[in-house]
């Protein structure tokens, strides 16, 4: 329980922000965070064996968020219902829209890298995909953004 509490203190805020941004439209982020740690508590062996507990927790949180989104009747909003960080720079605002318009797989991978600052290996663990796929998704996302920004 102490290990879990330590993980909560270390990664709880990032997980909560991730759940709020990604799945806050369909369920309470606090509830999903709670469910994440309940699920982690039920699998102590897997937690102990995880190469990156952070990536493992993000993987659980993502799974719980996707389950909540599937239960929700309304589709996900195209642009996240959160206040933009910088409304003064029109280029940033354009980029935000372009990122929101990226295919889901590319956008999610790019967000995990840039926003959550998760390494390629950890993204592969969170999304349960090979690391080569992570790399190719990131390259594709960046190239699409560059082409559309021209």
């Amino acid at each position: 329980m102490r290990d879990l509490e330590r993980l909560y203190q270390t990664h709880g805020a990032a997980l909560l922000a991730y759940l709020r941004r990604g799945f806050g439209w369909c369920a309470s982020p606090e509830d999903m965070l709670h469910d994440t740690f309940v699920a982690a508590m039920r699998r102590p062996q897997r937690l102990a064996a995880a190469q990156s507990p952070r990536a493992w927790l993000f993987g659980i949180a993502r799974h719980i968020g996707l389950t909540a989104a599937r239960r929700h009747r309304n589709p996900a909003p195209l642009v996240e219902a959160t206040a933009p960080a910088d409304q003064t720079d029109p280029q940033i605002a354009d980029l935000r829209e372009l990122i929101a318009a990226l295919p889901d797989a590319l956008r999610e991978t790019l967000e995990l890298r840039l926003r959550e600052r998760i390494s390629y290996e950890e993204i592969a663990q969170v999304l349960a995909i090979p690391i080569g796929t992570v790399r190719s998704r990131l390259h594709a996302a960046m190239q699409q953004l560059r082409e559309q920004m021209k």
Partner: protein
Amino acid sequence: MDDATLDRLMIDDALGALEPDVSALLAAYTASIPDTDQRRAGWRDLAEKARHAMVMPAADALPPFPAAQLRAARFWHNGRLGLAIAAVLAVGIGIGLWMPGKPVAVGPVAQVTKPVPTSPPPAIGVSDFWSSRRLLASAVEHGVQDRPAWRWSSPLTESSNGDLQ
């Protein structure tokens, strides 16, 4: 290095996925090629802007660790596991008690006659198996008459026309 490979490396560099020494090597390489350094700077600029576009206002404070709720959840999880095992056992025992016991039909069993092994010769007090004392003792015990009687007739005592003399 072809442009596509270089672009991939520059994107990894812009996303901060390269080791510092690899990034320095790449910077040195791109500095030596005209226009490539600007491309690298362009990728870095795009990544920085994308990161800036994604940064959101500070989220709400993290709620306190729900230790009591997690303990309760663990208790119920373990309790449910125990209940499940108990239920399975109860169902198994109930089915066992409920089902009438049927005698097992046994068919005729063919009797196999086995040759009765002969009892080993009694110990004679001789430890060496092949010793002359043991062979002698065995011969005395079983008697000379038990031996098959071999009879040998010499061809020298027979007549040439085959009549016995």
